């Protein structure tokens, strides 16, 4: 089976200016969504209390909320989790000197009045300082990753390619985070891990195209740089699609069958992979091209003959 029997001849680079606009809109839109909606950050980052409970029958969210408010937690948030039988109870961070055990015990007791057989599946109590630190650490990790990758690509290719790769790479997390901001799906620690994996994956994709560009420049001496980039993308297009299909198969399985705990992770990767496909073609290559990548950047340096050699 083959998708393309011969190398396709799409003129990707011709459309790059439009794609820049789209990318800028996406990034601005993502930042705006984060600003307006805000991310639905999990307790991992905000601190607070989360209790997952499984009821024997269908859980009555309103009643649960009411009972917990009466117990003395007016800020309680109650939602279904995974199935109609399971609920997730969330509280803001505890005040100073409040024992985590007391709170979880009290909530457990309140839930038992609704259903004596209720099963507490998990409780998490995270101090606000832990969450804040985790957030800072996550952003630091993101920056360091991007910086190291820039250095590696600049070293293996040229700095122009490095800039293209990094812009494409920074573009992709924006798309993922934007989707989480718009949909309001909880952004937890595993989603952060997925975002970092997307960064690695994004670079992976860009490198494959750049590798082909590097290979084609010496053999396409007469072509314009834009033609070389187009040819490289077209030649790797078949592989790009098949790899995406293969990875998506796995990630979609994770999203559909991995249970509630892996759903966010799966979604982040699905969105990320789609974003990566687009950005590795347009953003990375386009920027490298517009920064003036030309034959001389990647040609093996010609041996210079000393002028004084001749008598």
């Amino acid at each position, binding site marked *: *089976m083959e998708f393309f029997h011969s190398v396709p001849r799409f003129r990707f680079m011709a459309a790059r200016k439009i794609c820049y606009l789209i990318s800028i809109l996406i990034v601005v839109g993502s930042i705006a969504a984060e600003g307006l909606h805000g991310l639905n950050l999990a307790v991992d980052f905000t601190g607070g209390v989360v209790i997952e409970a499984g009821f024997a029958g269908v859980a009555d969210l309103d009643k649960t909320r009411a009972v917990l408010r009466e117990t003395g937690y007016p800020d309680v948030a109650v939602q279904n989790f995974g199935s109609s039988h399971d609920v997730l109870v969330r509280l803001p961070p505890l005040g100073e000197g409040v024992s985590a*055990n007391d709170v979880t015990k009290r909530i457990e007791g309140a839930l038992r009045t609704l259903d004596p057989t209720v099963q507490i599946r998990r409780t998490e109590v995270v101090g606000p300082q832990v969450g804040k630190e985790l957030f800072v650490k996550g952003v630091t990790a993101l920056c360091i990753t991007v910086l190291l990758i820039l250095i590696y690509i600049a070293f293996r290719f040229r700095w122009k390619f490095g800039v293209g790769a990094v812009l494409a790479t920074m573009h992709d997390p924006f798309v993922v985070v934007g989707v989480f901001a718009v949909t309001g799906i909880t952004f937890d620690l595993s989603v952060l891990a997925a975002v970092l994996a997307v960064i690695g994956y994004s670079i992976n994709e860009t490198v494959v195209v750049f590798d082909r560009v590097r290979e084609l420049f010496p053999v396409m001496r007469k072509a314009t740089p834009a033609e070389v980039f187009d040819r490289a993308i077209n030649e790797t297009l078949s592989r790009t699609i098949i790899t995406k299909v293969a990875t998506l198969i796995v990630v979609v399985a994770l999203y559909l069958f991995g249970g509630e705990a892996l759903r966010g992770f799966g979604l982040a990767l699905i969105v990320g992979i789609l974003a990566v496909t687009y950005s590795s073609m347009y953003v990375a290559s386009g920027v490298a091209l517009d920064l003036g990548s030309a034959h001389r950047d990647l040609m093996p340096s010609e041996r210079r003959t000393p002028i004084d050699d001749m008598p």
Partner: protein
Amino acid sequence: MNRYPLWKSLLFAGVMLLALVLALPNLFGEAPALQLSRKDGQLFVGQTAVDQFRDLLVADKVIPDTSFVQQGRVTLRFADVPTQLKARDVIEASAPGTYAIATTFASRAPEWVRSLGLKPMSLGLDLRGGIYLVYEVDVGGAVKQTLQRLERDYRLALRGKNIQYDSIEVSATGLIVTLRDASHREEARAALSAVDPNVTLVSGADANGLATVNISLNEAQVRQRQDFAIQQNITALGNRVNALGVSEASVQRQGANRIAVQLPGVQDASEVVRLLGKTATLEFRLVDHEANAFEAQQSGHVPLGTKLYKDRSGRPVLLKRDVIVTGEQLTDATSTLQQGEPAVSVRLDGRGGEEMLRTTRENLGKPMAVVFIERERQLREQNGAKVAVDVSREEVISVATINGVFSNQFQITGLAAREGQELAKLLRAGALAAPVYIVEQRLIGPSLGQDNIDKGVRALVIGSAALFLFMAIYYSAFGLVANVVLLCNVILLTACLSLFGAALTLPGIAGIMLTVGMAVDANILIYERIREELRLGNSPHAAIKAGFEKALSAIADANVTTLIAGVVLFLFGTGPIKGFAVVLSVGILTTLFTALMGSRTIIGLLWGRRATIARLPV
């Protein structure tokens, strides 16, 4: 002909064989088990120890699937959780309070696998259920304690030299001594630096024009104090976690000032928090060497002014009632070597030093003991009401003869090889405790853990099956080769994780899946190259050779960049994220190995021997 070098093929085959053996224990899964250890610290040895419990259980018709002794602990494995819990009750009832009984999981692997020392990947808390606690050590508080101690010592020193001072104030980072008379400044400086020569002294004046000496700790001292505070709490928590008898429990430093405690399989959070929240202290006392401690123990008559204690092996010791020095006055304890013999170097603060000087001068040649006291607050029923009661456990951890007159620095010698470190640890644990707070507490129920495993494995199986099908359809025979290579990759990854003793978490399972999804990329790059070469009219052999060679740079660069992301994630991540990073990073290495060497070996084996190939099934 297109043969892959034989030694490379053999290397691949050899590595895969080893990987298969290492990954094997994971195939059997785990079953609920009990792990028993004696509370008095003695170890179980030999088959008789095992049989004793087996017989006990069989008599009650609770039959363990298997039982064995390992590292002084007896492990009994059961078919299901109800049996396990029943067995726990039976054993506890047979000898209440004698054994620490931990409910845990044990591998179902047969005897011969275990005897090879092979272990499956351990499961993380999110898969097994259990309690995760993060303590934050108040390092600022620890530094403040040091300053307060210095303040007391300075008062003592200045009074001793008859230097009049107006006040000594403790600030966040240092102390300010205000003198009555500026002419005493030099004298005061000398007295102050005699207390601790390492601090920085700066002369100044206060708002009223009185002469002051500003004292600040240097950076090394602050760091030393903070490290001491954290190490002290790690030791203390470690001791208490050990006492819980939970298998695979861990106490680890996390970042600058946190300690993470993992207790797999444990479900009662409040009980654990109470037990871990004990406080410890020390008392240095003189031994009453004239009276016979054994007699006192038997008769119950203790000589006047003494108290009966037990040492760590249960022998009685009679100690004088007067306390020389307490843990609050101990500033450091480190295990060292003194002329090749293990020793513990102890430092006390100024007040403790003076007491010690007086005592040792009067009691040269007599034995002195150190008592370790652990207190915990227990809730007890009293007349129907719950009352908090402080319960303490006291134990003599060292008895040594006073061989010289000393004050705030001395050494405890005459210890066996490992005793030195143990004693230093206990002494540190008993020093004035730096305050700790729980900043994170997670409890994962066992049903959720099992649920996570089931769903994670289901996603893995469905995803992989769909992927295998896709590859076989798209690349026909070469697709099947890619599938075999993928399978090798997963086996190798599992083997590596089992070998490192890494814990498998839910994000870890996701990491394995992502590795599988990304590992096919290497094969796809190679196959697409082969197809391109074939389209250019190259012979199949030349196409295979060129396909591998030309795809190499893309595969290498692509994987190195992903590896960078994985390593950064590992360095910055904690808990489950670290697990994900480990799997991702190791997965990239196994991907490179299997995709490059494995594919080449298998393709060489299938097609390399033929002189000509009409058509490549790619």
